[in-house]
């Protein structure tokens, strides 16, 4: 079918820009140019003015662009020309943008001095442009992370507005987008800065960032800072632990992992807003699914090991400083993991695919093995690895390269949820729980599916939604972030995200959808056979 493939690219509109949109793009690029000039060392005289001009210019441009895009058409799905446009169809512009963002991340993580960071002195260049804003919030000069946070929040806000416009017929989409816009602005951006102003000793803490996403949360310097800054600090430390062990499982049980991934999380927030134009690029093959399961769960194992090792390394032999001794801590971790694992094996065996069981067994062995060896290691080493080395490797490979450079830089090539799907250990934990112990599912509406494939195409997590929908089965997948786009784009009203009782949640029986009842029973009886 080469003719059809090529024809889609040769095909005419709708891929061009409307006139007003060209001006909006021009405005946006000029505003962005201010940032670029600053990055190349131009020292703006009145920084507050130029920064305001630049940021509001970018915001205004995106809003203007979206208004022109959606104002003329009645409300509804707006996917015309997605695969014809260079930027969303892996064309030249997509590659250019991908390289640009990737480059930005590399500089940000590894060469912040090019952005104007000066070790012991006033900032220069780009970072100094953001000084006025940073001083207004926290009282301190900007850092590269402040610049990044500001641009990140701006992107979520601007493209969030675009997204809300695009889905103005769909309240689920609107509400969850407002939610991520709120959490990003308040929790990730403003509150930590203000807390820093009020209490300079508190570590920077984005309260919605939960371990293992903020894998560094329990490192020694942070834990010390928490403890040293009194009740508030202690409260935050306890909140950090409670959010992993209590809040997260509870909310995931009731609503699925979407409460976090599509309503709260900042990575998800960026993916859903700025990344919306790229959701169709995710790989839907069963091969990609397999890779996903191995990679994301390996990251999970890695982060568990790494965190255990790091905490272990600074805990003392007794409970005088941290309430826990080295061995108490280790035994605690072992008991917790084994408990969870045993529970799954006893109560949820049937829900796991074969390889999941192999994987889980393997990993449990590794973890327990390493812990055992741990007892025979000294305080700075886990077996042969130094805990510091593990931490550094994790922070480099996963924290920087995977989540930033690949996760966001490759949006225009591999889609907007590469990190969430293949890399995020938080998503892995929530996913396991969603698959095994949650009321959430996507219900398939009887026999209405026409196998068109819109749902699968626009699933950013690369789930082949159609494969379930066309046989009348509910979708209960670990990776589903509950974005609800499959349900939105389905032209036949087949899919509904729902919370409900666990019983009957997974219904893999292929029924003769629409055929009369006797036949259905028969089909169910026979559904144990192969293929």
């Amino acid at each position, binding site marked *: 079918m080469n003719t059809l493939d090529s024809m889609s690219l040769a095909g005419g509109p709708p891929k061009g820009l409307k006139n007003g949109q060209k001006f909006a793009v021009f405005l946006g690029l000029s505003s962005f140019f201010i940032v670029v000039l600053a990055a190349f060392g131009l020292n703006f005289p009145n920084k507050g003015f130029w920064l305001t001009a630049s940021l509001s210019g970018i915001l205004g441009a995106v809003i203007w662009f979206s208004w022109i895009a959606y104002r003329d058409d009645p409300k509804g799905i707006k996917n015309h020309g997605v695969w014809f446009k260079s930027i969303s169809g892996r064309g030249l512009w997509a590659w250019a943008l991908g390289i640009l963002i990737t480059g930005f991340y590399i500089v940000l993580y590894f060469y912040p001095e090019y952005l104007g960071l000066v070790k012991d002195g006033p900032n220069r260049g780009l970072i100094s442009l953001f000084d006025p804003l940073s001083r207004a919030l926290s009282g301190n000069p900007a850092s590269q992370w402040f610049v990044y946070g500001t641009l990140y929040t701006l992107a979520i806000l601007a493209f969030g507005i675009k997204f809300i416009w695009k889905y103005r017929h769909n309240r689920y989409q609107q509400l969850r987008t407002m939610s991520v816009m709120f959490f990003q602005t308040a929790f990730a951006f403003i509150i930590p800065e203000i807390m820093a102003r009020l209490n300079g000793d508190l570590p920077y803490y984005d309260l919605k960032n939960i371990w293992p996403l903020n894998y560094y949360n329990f490192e020694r310097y942070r834990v010390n800072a928490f403890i040293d800054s009194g009740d508030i600090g202690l409260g935050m430390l306890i909140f950090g632990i409670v959010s992993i062990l209590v809040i997260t499982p509870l909310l995931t049980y009731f609503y699925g992992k979407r409460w976090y991934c599509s309503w709260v999380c900042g990575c998800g927030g960026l993916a859903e807003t700025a990344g919306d134009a790229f959701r169709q690029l995710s790989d839907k093959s069963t091969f990609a699914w397999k890779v996903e399961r191995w990679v994301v769960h390996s990251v999970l194992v890695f982060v568990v090991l790494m965190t255990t090792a790091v905490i272990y390394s600074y805990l003392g032999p007794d409970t005088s400083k941290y309430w826990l001794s080295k061995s108490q801590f280790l035994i605690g971790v072992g008991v917790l993991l084994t408990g969870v694992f045993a529970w799954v094996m006893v109560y949820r065996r049937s829900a796991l695919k074969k390889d999941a069981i192999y994987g889980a067994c393997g990993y449990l062995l590794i973890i327990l093995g390493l812990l055992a060896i741990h007892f025979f290691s000294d305080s700075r080493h886990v077996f042969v690895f130094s805990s510091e080395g593990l931490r550094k490797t994790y922070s480099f490979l996963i924290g920087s390269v995977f989540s930033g450079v690949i996760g966001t830089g490759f949006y225009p090539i591999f889609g907007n949820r590469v990190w969430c799907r293949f890399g995020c250990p938080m998503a892995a934990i929530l996913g396991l729980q969603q698959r095994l112990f949650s009321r959430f599912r996507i219900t398939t509406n009887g*026999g209405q599916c026409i196998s068109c494939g819109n749902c699968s195409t626009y699933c950013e997590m690369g789930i082949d939604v159609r494969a379930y929908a066309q046989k009348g089965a509910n979708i209960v997948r670990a990776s589903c972030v509950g974005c609800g786009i499959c349900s939105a784009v389905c032209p036949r009203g087949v899919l509904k995200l729902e919370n409900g009782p666990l019983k009957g949640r997974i219904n893999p029986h292929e029924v003769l959808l629409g055929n009369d009842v006797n036949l259905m029973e028969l089909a169910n009886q026979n559904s144990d056979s192969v293929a």
Partner: protein
Amino acid sequence: MQIVIIGNGISGITAARHIRKLSDHQITVISAESDYFFSRTALMYIYMGHMKYQHTKPYEDSFWKKNRIELKRARVRSVDTETKTLILDSGSQIAYDKLIIATGSQPNRFGWPGQDLKRVQGLYSLQDLEALEKNAPDSHRCKRAVIVGGGLIGIELAEMLRSRNIPVTFLVRETSFWNGVLPQGESAMINEHIREHHVDLRLNTNLKEILSDDAGAARAVITDGGEQIDCDLVGLTAGVRPNIDFLSGSGVQTDKGVLVDRQLRTNIPDVFAIGDCAQQRTPIGKRRAVEAVWYTGRMMGETVARTICGAPMEYNPGHWFNSAKFFDIEYQTYGWVSGASSKDPQERQFHWRHPEQYLCLTISYHKESRVLLGINTFGIRMRHEVIDQWLTENRTVDQVVPRLGEANFDPEWYRHYETEIAQTFTSKAEKVV
């Protein structure tokens, strides 16, 4: 046993998959159209840029080999039921033990003068889509298109062309869009919506003739009102008919389609027919004898697979249902709601429409017993299972209306209108009494 299936659409492919599930027979699927099964219902989305061709394939290419289903790209020229062989266009032959005919439909052409000109086409196959990409790539090379026939495919074609900003004139024979199927209020709402998408909708208008330019391509149409409309493309979407011409002389009995009994057997032993091309000898309930929709093809495929694998089974579709989308408005139907021009005298209808938005619903019920006959919704999604149960249990309209909320399938946080609907229902009922 060698089972040969002609046609790799939803019906043929469902049959193949289920035969593989139930048996170890050899399975060959022959199709002239494409190498792999794709979803015909998604053709429009390729042209509109929502999807690429590869996204319309419900199974990965490796699926077929893994499941030992042999795919063959060829056209069957004729069938010799005496010797149980198929003759292909290339002249080569294929023997079968059991044959399943699943050849689908082709667009109707009613003998209009000029219907075979260049740039006159239907919309059914991949090849039609390729032709459309050539005939109407953009609004410069196609300054206006005329669509003839106001059905589901016609309105899809209109949406497709409008996605590329091509001006469209839509000739509809009926006095209101699809009112042979839709009740008046619904049909009127769709008329409005079509026009809102800048389609020049001509109701009550027939095609008389298509005019040719010097190169033998369409340049204009003449309507029955005598008006000439210049155009670069004529889309013929006045329904489809079974694609069975190759069966003439084979001894397989046909009428509009291949005649089959409830077990989907033709008059010839070991020859079955399913999907769009099959015609029930006696229509089932109020269903048409030829049902050209997706899910009936799927159900027939599964049924015939069981029959062939030694567990004979009747095709026994439950309550009628279907769905479609008219530009931005989703439509679902369950049970029977008669259209404006074909209303059953025993049927009463309750119609509700939102004062501003494109949302409406029609409930039809029996005049005397008040038993629910069917529900149509526009812009509101309904839960198949619940309504199916209501129909089976013969609930009355008075039981159903207060409980509509149970059947709502809209995404979470959507506004619900059940209270308004119920209020309107009671106030209307009071007036009637």
